[in-house]
Every structure is written in C-alpha cells, then in structure tokens.
C-alpha cells in the first residue's frame, strides 16, 4: 500500500540514514567537505521533490538515487577528478589494514577496490558503490537508476573489469 511521507518523517529518515548517504557521497569525492556539500544539496533536493517519492518504503533507494546523481553532478561541475587518497585521509593506512590479519584478506581487497574507484568515471562508480559497498542487488540498482537490469549488470561488470585491469596493471 502506498504511503507518502511528510517533511518531518523525511527529516527523521534522512537522519537515520545519514551515515550511509555520507559514505556513498564520500566514495565519489573522497573529500570530507565535498561529501558534506553533496549530502546537504541532496537533502535540499529531496525535500523539494518529496512529492515524487511514491511510497515511504522506497525512501532509502529514492534518496540514494538523489545522492548518486548529486555526486555525479558535483564532480562534473567541479570538473576535476576526486583525489586519490594517497595519505588515506579518513581511511586506515593500507599497511595498517594489511596488518589486521584477523579481518582476513577481504579487508585488503576491499581497500584496493575502494581506492581503485577513483579511476572510474563518476557514472561507473555508481554501480560499484551501490553493488559492493551498499550491497544492493542488480534488480534494486536497476529500479533505483531506472535502467534495465541487464544494462546495470553489463555496466557493473565493465566497471569491475576496468578496475581489475588497473589493479593488476593490465
């Protein structure tokens, strides 16, 4: 059943999910202030277009789409690529991550994967962030981005392949 949300519920929901939204924005720009600006702008857009949200249950995916689009716009407007986190600002040093053996190799792979995002075009990053960092499945991403599932799959694999080649020096 459809249930639209009001602005107070919007505020409540965006606060509940704020860290998740920030992480997505950060994945694009790798810069604290820029990520904050993106979340701020997306909050503004979300509230202005609240009537476009069909149902409260889709809030997170709907807002994620706004965050993603705002991030892409932000990068385009600023006409620059997000800096590679050489000093890992905000992230643990790669070595430190490697030392944490109890977390297993996954952690390292994730760190590499995360850092390799920077070589992707903003649109390409979307598939990786949503699929592998936000753990959405292809069907959900397709709904979110209003694209056919097959397109999402092929673009995700293409982006992954590009990252893989970069990481293996291929």
């Amino acid at each position: 059943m459809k249930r639209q949300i009001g602005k107070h519920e919007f505020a409540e929901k965006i606060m509940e999910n704020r860290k998740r939204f920030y992480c997505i924005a950060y994945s694009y720009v790798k810069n604290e202030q820029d990520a904050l600006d993106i979340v701020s702008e997306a909050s503004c857009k979300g509230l202005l277009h609240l009537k476009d949200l069909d149902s409260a249950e889709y809030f997170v995916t709907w807002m994620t789409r706004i965050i993603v689009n705002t991030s892409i716009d932000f990068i385009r407007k600023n006409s620059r690529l997000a800096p590679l986190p050489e000093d890992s600002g905000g992230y643990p040093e790669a070595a430190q991550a490697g030392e944490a053996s109890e977390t297993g190799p996954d952690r390292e792979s994730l760190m590499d994967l995360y850092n390799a995002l920077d070589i992707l075009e903003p649109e390409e990053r979307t598939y990786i962030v949503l699929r592998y960092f936000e753990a959405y499945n292809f069907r959900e991403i397709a709904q979110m981005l209003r694209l056919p599932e097959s397109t999402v799959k092929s673009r995700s694999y293409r982006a992954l392949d590009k990252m893989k080649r970069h990481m293996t020096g291929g």
Partner: protein
Amino acid sequence: MDAERFAYENIEIPDDRLVQAIYAGMGRAERIRRKKRLSASLTAAAAAFALLFCSANIPSVYAYASGLPVVGEFVRALHIGGGGKTTLHEGISVEVVDSELIVRFVNQGRTTDTVVPYRVQGHDAPCRIDLSLKSLTEEEYEKLEAQIREMKGVSDVYRTLSLEKDTVSFTIVLNRLYDYEVMEQIFPGTLSVRLFQDAYYTAEENAPEQQVYYLRTEGMEQDDSLRALLEKYKAEEPSQVRTQEGSFILAIGEFDTREEAEKRLLELQESYAGAAELQVGSGMAKEVPE
C-alpha cells in the same frame, strides 16, 4: 567482512557537521519552497532555519522527531515563544567567532539551562534578520549590539519597536545576501546565529542582484504612529526597516514580481479598509530603501 561494514567502519564520519549539512540543505529547500508560495499566511522570512538540540553534540533520534527540524513550522513555533519559559538571568555572555554569534545567559554564576524567549525572522531585501529577545536590559542589549557589529557579514544593527512588554527588538543588516541559521541548544541554553556564505545559493534562490518586491509605508519616526501601524498590521508580521534618511518604514511580505506584490496589496486593501498607508516598494539585497 562485508563491503558495507567496511565502508561504515573505515570512513571517518564528521557526524556533527553531517547533521548541520543536512539541516542546512533542508533549510534551503524550505526557503526555496517558501519563496514560491509567499502568501498572507506566511511570514516573509527569507532564510530562517532553526534547530533545537536536546544535547549539544549528539542529538537523539527523539530530538529529530520532536524538534521539528524543518524550518517553516518551527520558525512559526518560535514566533510564539522560542527559548525557555524562564527569563530569569542576571547577565549575558556574548561571543562572536567569525560569522557566528553565540549568546548565553548567566544566573547565580552559572549558565542558564535555556535561553530567554526569542523570535527570529529573516528578509532578503535589504538582507536582514529581525530578532526579539525577552527580558533583556539596556545594558545587556548594548553589549550584544557591540558584539554583533563585530560579526563578519554585518553592516548595521538598529533597534526597532516592540509591541511586547520587556522585549528588545532589533535588526541585523547583512552586507550581502546570506543564508543564516539560528540554533538553540538547551543544557546549557545557547542561542547562536550563524551566517553562511553564498556557496549555498542555488539556481532557484534569489541572486543578490534580484529585485524583490514588498509592501511598504512612507518613512516615519519611531513614535506612536509607527506603533499604531505595527499594531494594525500585526497579523501580517510587518518588519521595520531603517531607510537611508534614518526614518523607519513598515515592510510586509517579499515577492518575486511586482504583480504578486500588487495582488497582495489589493487583498490587504480589502481587509484593512483601504490600507492607504501601503504601497508597493522594491529593492535588492544590499539596497537600503529610501
């Protein structure tokens, strides 16, 4: 370890600033929305944006839900008594950091838990913030005014008439079109006014050079006739603006076009038996009316 947990555990999240950023975004949305539907029932508040935090640093989910974070209604709530109920204090502490003003009240040697009741209203043309604080002494106001003059972005401060007893009203004139945020905290009671740079402008907001229309009176002295007009048009939430000559006008509403202002004038003429004192005026963010 899954990717989601990885991201959450390894990205340092500046949570206080994140909360601020979200509120700032929602504040802008309210401002844009309000501009699009300026009407009699709404104040012409330009950029007021207020928060009520139950604790200084880690606002609870309850606070978000109950603190009415979205501007319009909360600002209206403030109009009937922002701040605490008690006005008892024996001193005031005022601090200015760059473009932020922080006010606290002191009683029996300690900061009070709540701030005094206050009201706030913002306007675009000229860009200004009207503030009213209850139970402020002349001495305390002077201290406050002196500090406000030190704020980055402030071009003038002047007293205005207040219809309420024991209330000091004044206007802070800004030297450009700023967004601002009024934040109230309790335990201890803190009232802060922060100005934002125009990095926060969006395409839908008034650009500094945009003409804004409003209804205005002729320039008057701050005397009984001005007080009478304030009383007469109280429901329209009039603002008092000091002119270039030093007289004061009453200004009502802010409109994007002359037509909207004229339409509102016609409505007021019907409601107020001609409303002969009012005419359409206009100006820009940095333009003090004649």
